[in-house]
């Protein structure tokens, strides 16, 4: 019987979390779209400092993660293509895979682990130290003051990081293609971009915008819900990262289906 009880409680938990995330999303949208016209402007200095923290300081890790992914993808695909006498198609395989899928998704996962965790830890610590309550009693919305700047910063920075990640992944494939597989450099680059379409690029980048909203909302939601001191902050951070990972993969699946399995 316990299995029914546990399943019921789990579903109830997911439903409450979904409602909470939706409510936070609407509140953030209000402060971004309507607040500035009601004399409640967005905290722009905070947006810019968050853009530096989230974007600029993530460049190196994103670069290396996607670079090595490009390297591995080239290494794994080369033997099969060689058997068909088409090893130079490693270039387009790597480029299209990175631009459509691996660049945006891996960049988002890295950023969820780094930035999503940081958002939850910061807001969660503020919650357990009564700082969120202090903002409330001063009639300052914690969503407007804390969450919106982080969300906007990530919304602008994640697509930029994705572009850098895409370039790194293509470079990784290039390094293997030219230096290991001995493909002519000019031929490699020509083949890499020959089959790349604008749709490959915009589908990949549009995913980045969606992933950014997921990471920021989940991170902030878990932070604002934190209870129970330092242990609570640790627990919330873990839940935030895992939830972000799962939702990113689900969103990727849905968007890929919409873009490539329908008539869009």
């Amino acid at each position, binding site marked *: 019987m316990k299995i029914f009880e546990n399943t019921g409680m789990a579903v109830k938990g997911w439903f409450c979390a979904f409602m909470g995330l939706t409510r936070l999303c609407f509140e953030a949208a209000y402060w971004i779209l309507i607040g500035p016209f009601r004399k409640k402007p967005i905290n722009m200095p905070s947006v810019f400092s968050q853009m530096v923290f989230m974007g600029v300081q993530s460049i190196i890790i994103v670069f290396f993660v996607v670079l090595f992914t490009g390297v591995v993808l080239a290494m794994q695909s080369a033997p099969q293509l060689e058997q068909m006498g088409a090893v130079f198609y490693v270039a387009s395989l790597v480029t299209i895979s990175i631009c459509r899928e691996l660049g945006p998704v891996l960049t988002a996962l890295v950023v969820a682990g780094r930035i999503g965790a940081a958002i939850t830890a910061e807001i969660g610590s503020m919650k357990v*130290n*009564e700082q969120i309550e202090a903002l409330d009693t001063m009639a300052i919305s914690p969503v407007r003051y804390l969450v919106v700047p982080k969300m906007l910063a990530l919304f602008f920075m994640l697509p930029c990081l994705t572009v850098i990640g895409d370039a790194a992944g293509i470079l990784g494939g290039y390094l293997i293609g030219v230096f290991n597989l001995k493909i002519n450099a000019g031929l490699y680059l020509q083949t890499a971009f020959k089959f790349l379409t604008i749709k490959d690029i915009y589908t990949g980048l549009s995913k980045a915008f969606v992933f950014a909203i997921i990471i920021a909302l989940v991170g902030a939601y878990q932070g604002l819900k934190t209870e129970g001191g330092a242990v609570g902050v640790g627990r919330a951070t873990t839940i935030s990262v895992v939830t972000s990972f799962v939702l990113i993969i689900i969103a990727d699946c849905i968007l890929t289906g919409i873009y490539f399995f329908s008539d869009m």
Partner: protein
Amino acid sequence: MSDKKTAISVQNISKTFEGRKVLDNVTLDIYKGEIFVIMGGSGSGKSTLLRIMTGGIQPVFGKVFFDEKDLNALRANEAEKVKRRFGMSFQSAALLDFLTVEENVSLPLREHTNLDSKIISIIAKMKLGLVGLQGFENFYPSMLSGGMKKRVGVARAIAMDPEVVFYDEPTAGLDPVVCHVIDKLILDLTKRLKLTSVVVTHNMESIFRIADRVGMLYKGNLLEVGTPDEIKHSKNKIIQQFIHGHLEGPIQLT
């Protein structure tokens, strides 16, 4: 007392948390210009009552009136205007770690007024001067002692020249000398700025130093309200055990 105006009127407040009754039918009036102390042991419901008075928590039953307005019946923008007339000092000071002392104190001014940033800076320095912390404007909270953080919290609470200031355990964790400093600060600010102060504490020395009137909470019930002298001579055995800190008596730790 009939010529005294009521600042805050708490009527039949009850609150339950996860099945446990934390406040049971509490009614009291706080008059303008007085220092009202809510005292009680740990778990007596005093911090919850404070948060219901500031509008931070909704009661299950009952109403809180400020300036004849029911706090829980107000729309969002009206509730915001009322909150700006309150100031709150937290037990842990609750300063924002990423802002300097001056930025913390000037936060409500920057968010709620259109004043020039130079004027806001002058006001923040004035408020810090009132709590004896001039010169610490560029320090971060992590560089301050507990007592100093509390005083910055008080400066922030009075930044918008509120009518009512709420203090949640203002002397918790502080040494006796610093406790006296905080008590004197509460007294000075209330009289000089003509505020109403609501203080939650169980520090008996502070209570008898600063209170105009005291209300004793025990297990969510308001046992008695009176002047410090009246409370000292109360016939209620619970109050007597609490004031003197006796081990024997009706208050048993579970």
